[in-house]
């Protein structure tokens, strides 16, 4: 540890400074209702996890976040660029472009979204180790600094690389903590908001002792699920948000036997150091993602 770092470390941080209005500590999601649920938005210096089955809107919300992060701080944004690390499908460029129409004030918003593909969990760690210079370099350059990192999805990275035996599981959880530690360090050093996306797995037995978060069990599409990657990974994130979807049949006015289904989506705080147990319904349209007043 070099001298300056250690001198800085041994001085307690002035917590009152964090309250100053010039230092925006939250990034708006681009919708006042969702922001209210999150106490102002996605917090900086912190890891926020979105957990959901596919088709709930995890990627939709994070894409909108890539845009809202570019808003000036007066509008709740971070006036910053963002970095999108993706493992699953090809990068949803067309959808991002579509959503950007809801942000007419932004100039060339797609220029301020950096993307990078990921192949494996180890690759993610390597990428994180290499971006220090990118994060600090941009602080001095003319384009806005990176203040948001989205990882979509962390579950996919770990799914194939490790076997289900004690040795692999131990290695896997060691890597969880290494990645999380690196992300938290960067979040702290550069004031980043970090969003990681996780998937769900079905719950088969009814053991109650492993309950994590505000509800005994999570239901989505009439399935009982829990977050993937288990207890160790749950220790690696600061805030966990759970998204769920439910199909509802509504009768058509014409014809008795004719039903049409409607999808309702909910976002719920599973655990967070700063938020109470709360939830709200949200809607995904062509233009944007927004919450509904309850």
């Amino acid at each position: 540890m070099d001298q300056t770092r250690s001198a800085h470390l041994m001085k307690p941080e002035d917590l009152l400074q964090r309250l100053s209005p010039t230092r925006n500590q939250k990034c708006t999601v681009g919708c006042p209702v969702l922001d209210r649920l999150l106490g102002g938005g996605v917090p900086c210096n912190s890891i926020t996890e979105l957990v959901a089955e596919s088709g709930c809107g995890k990627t939709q919300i994070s894409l909108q976040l890539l845009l809202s992060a570019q808003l000036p701080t007066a509008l709740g944004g971070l006036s910053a660029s963002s970095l999108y690390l993706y493992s699953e499908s090809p990068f949803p460029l067309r959808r991002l472009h579509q959503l950007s129409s809801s942000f007419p004030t932004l100039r060339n918003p797609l220029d301020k979204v950096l993307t990078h593909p990921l192949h494996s969990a180890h690759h993610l760690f390597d990428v994180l180790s290499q971006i220090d210079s990118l994060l600090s370099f941009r602080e001095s350059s003319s384009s806005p600094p990176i203040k948001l990192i989205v990882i979509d999805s962390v579950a996919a990275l770990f799914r194939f690389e490790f076997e289900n035996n004690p040795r692999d599981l131990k290695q896997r959880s060691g890597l969880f903590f290494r990645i999380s530690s690196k992300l938290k360090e960067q979040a702290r050093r550069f004031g980043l908001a970090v969003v990681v996306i996780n998937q769900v797995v079905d719950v088969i037995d009814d053991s109650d002792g492993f309950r994590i978060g505000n509800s005994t069990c999570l239901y989505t599409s009439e399935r009982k699920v829990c977050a993937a990657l288990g207890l160790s990974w749950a220790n690696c994130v600061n805030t966990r948000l759970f998204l769920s979807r439910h199909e509802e049949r509504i009768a058509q006015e014409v014809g008795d036997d004719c039903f049409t289904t409607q999808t309702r989506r909910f976002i719920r705080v599973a655990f967070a150091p700063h938020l109470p147990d709360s939830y709200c319904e949200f809607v995904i349209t062509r233009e944007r993602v927004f919450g509904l007043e309850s």
Partner: protein
Amino acid sequence: MEVSSLPISASVRAKLISAGYTSLSSLFSVSHSDIARDLKISENEVLEILRVASQRRGSESSNGTSSIVNGAQSAWEMLNEEESLGRITTSCSELDDILGGGISCKEVTEIGGVPGIGKTQLGIQLAVNVQIPMDYGGLQGKAIYIDTEGSFMVERALQIADACLEDMREYHGFLKRDLQACQVNMQPKDFLENIFYFRVCSYTEQIAVVNYLEKFISEHKDVKVVIIDSITFHFRQDFDDMALRTRLLGGMALKLMKLAKKFALPVILLNQVTTKYTEGQYQLTLALGDSWSHACTNRVILYWNGNERYAYIDKSPSVRSAAAPYSVTGRGIRSSVSNCKRVKMM
């Protein structure tokens, strides 16, 4: 040792006390001719008093009040000291009860549980409650908060401080005391100022800060609690050398215990839980393994029981193991039992 307890005549005793010789040491600190002059008695009478006094002092010391080894304490003295040190309330009376009245000073207490059970909430609550003024039964101290996970949220600390102030004002009104000193003049922001916050991002930084604490507390004597949230996080990355990890953790535990003793303050270590495979099934257990479990004086496990949060005393030398419910509310940690009762009464 008081002159008033000496087996001498009442008139001589009264003369001694009125002349200002109240303690035995004051008798031995001046010459006997001075005493004779002050009390207007003969030097022989003074010598007799001193003989009785020195006998008494001798017998007292052989009883063991003055210690054999410098720094050693008798159990009786320790008990007296412990009672005078006070405790930090958790703001949940059931939890305080099973802890023997709150978090006790001079001890290392480990608190663990699953994510979202309220470890950080309890940590912030204690960092606020340690600041409750003495007039309200608090320690009126400051807190050191070492954040290894980045979960300390200022907005949440303000909410909890606000509710704590509200409770104090209510209590003040209840007592109807109009003492100026008892007025609550604190602001929620004052609570933040009294939390020395260190954010550490690696295990080397964590060890460096823990090593630095002794110096820091010597310079800030009003620190009355040290909270580490969590002790575990940086030690769960894969250590190639597990023996090194055990040594580092052991060294840190010793340092923290020494701090608790030396400055008579409680050290709170928040821990994560992990699963352990025993007797054919997975069970929840506190992280960092068996050797670590000896590092703390007290261990408290937080867990879900149905829809209620519970705390369980897993290990303590002074209180019996017991469980109690608590709840995490907008105002901080609170009792959940009284809420139920209130609902039932209505």
